[in-house]
């Protein structure tokens, strides 16, 4: 019965056991969230704390949509994330391509100073930015979140890194054929950039959806709140309603988690591409 176990077998058990431990620690809070969200009100606050709902119910979700207006918060989140993604994708791609492939006076210096600006934490700019947007009439509007996010140094950097791999001959040939710069960009370059566009879109969408501090500051009208802002308010008002809050957390987390699972390959590539700037 007992097969002699070699040292490398033990190493395998140890390594995989540790990985299982890591996976349980990573996923357990998320699975628990899902489970509690289906519990009837008050069930999670009993002893011993239950793992699974005794009688699974959708009541918490129903309540969130009918009484807490979570549907409109979700729409705000979606609208903001989509607008930010589309606009910043356009502007960052144009700029990233130009920094990689078009020569102009002071290009490298300009790009280096943009990279240098990455050391400034975003929060430093928040107070004057608020005053500026107030002057422009954008405080307390979707535009107050979208407009400042329409371009990012990180996005430009990502596109530039990727675009540098496109051979110059391809662009030269098009120029000799008399194609204009904008047509070259639109018809030749853009299709080649598809992978990095998906990567950047995923990054931007997730970042925008998950963003908290700036929307909290600039959207004071509760009708405009995004899911994270609304959830943080609800969690303060409904401290005791853990089941309800878990349903809210599920609605906030699930869309981005699914999006990540679907586009994982692109997302992780972007993470690595973006981290090699050193």
């Amino acid at each position, binding site marked *: 019965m007992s097969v002699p176990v070699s040292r490398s077998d033990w190493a*395998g058990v140890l*390594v995989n056991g540790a*990985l299982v431990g*890591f*996976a349980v*620690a*990573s*996923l357990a*809070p998320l699975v*628990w969230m899902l489970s509690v969200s289906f519990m009837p009100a008050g069930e*999670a*606050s009993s*002893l*011993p*704390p239950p793992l699974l709902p005794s009688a699974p119910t959708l009541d918490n979700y129903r309540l969130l949509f009918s009484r807490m207006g979570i549907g409109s918060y979700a729409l705000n989140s979606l609208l903001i994330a989509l607008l930010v993604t589309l606009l910043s994708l356009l*502007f*960052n791609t*144009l*700029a990233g*391509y*130009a920094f990689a492939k078009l*020569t*102009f*006076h002071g290009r490298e210096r300009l790009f280096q100073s943009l990279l240098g600006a990455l*050391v400034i*934490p975003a*929060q430093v*700019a*928040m*107070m*004057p*930015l608020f*005053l*500026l947007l107030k002057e422009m009439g954008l405080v307390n509007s979707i535009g107050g979140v979208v407009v*400042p996010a*329409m371009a*990012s*140094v990180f996005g*430009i950097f990502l596109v530039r890194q990727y675009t540098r791999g496109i051979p110059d001959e391809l662009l030269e040939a098009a120029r000799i054929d008399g194609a*204009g*710069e*904008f047509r070259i960009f639109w018809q030749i370059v853009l299709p080649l950039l598809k992978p990095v566009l998906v990567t950047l879109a995923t990054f931007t969408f997730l970042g925008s959806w*998950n963003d*908290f*501090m700036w929307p909290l*500051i600039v959207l004071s009208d509760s009708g405009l709140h995004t*899911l994270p802002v609304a*959830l*943080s308010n609800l*969690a303060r008002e409904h401290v005791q309603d853990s089941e309800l*809050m878990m349903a*809210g*957390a599920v609605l*906030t*987390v699930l869309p*981005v988690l699914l999006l990540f699972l679907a586009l*994982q390959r692109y997302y*992780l590539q972007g993470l690595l591409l973006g*981290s090699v700037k*050193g």
Partner: protein
Amino acid sequence: MTASRAAWCFISPALLVIGVFFLLPAAASLLLSLTDFDLYALADPANLRWVGFANYLELLQRPLFWQALGNTLYFVVVGVPVSMGVSLLAAVLLQDSAARCRAFFRTALFAPVVTTVVAVAVIWRYLFHTRYGWINHVLAGVGIDPVDWLGDPHWAMPTLILFAVWKNFGYNMIILLAGLQAIPADLYEAARIDGANRWQQFRHITLPSLQPMLMMVAILTTAGYFQLFAEPYVITEGGPVQSTLSVLYLMFEEGFKWWNLGMASAVAFSLFALMLFVTLILTRLFRSRHE
């Protein structure tokens, strides 16, 4: 249209956005921090006065600022090494030749990174509930008395650090994993032939090869952890007795609760200066060790 004119057309929208909505406000923030901009100035700019470094001097005399600074440093000094250690351990495990189902484990361990901070912070509040939370329930199983995680000033910050590690370790894990994969296998082969055990291989091959990557990861993580805000805002609201009040939380309250935008800018710039200083020290530290 010349190529250089086209280039400017291509970059100007992005430059305009970054310049007007980030660089300009960031520079203006420095000026704002030298004024007494408050609720009255918000109503009528005529009430605005130039106060020089008075905001900074006042901050230095405020116990709450030092408390916030101390809390943030606690979070960074403990949180960053623990995060990096966990990331490195996870990466080494994933890269080990004995590891099975790598793609699954990689995804599972990375999942918390893409979740929404606010939402998972809400989960944390219930998991660490003194009476009904699973953490205390499991601890009771091994005979440990219930801990008031979020209500005890000594435990609140460690709980937030644990949360941050759980939420973030997957990010650096992916970067370090790529670093591990770039180390040539014959280095380990040669070490094995020389009779080096696993620990010695890790100590003398893995760590030195990862050095540049570890430096980058340390700097990025440190910068991120200095910007602590959403976690205490949602989980502890800065309490108990201000034990989790962070510098950015203080900035948020000064600026957008009390509308002291001048003082808030001074808080932000103090944090920025501290971050630059710490980054400089980290760079020096890694460089000197490298040589």
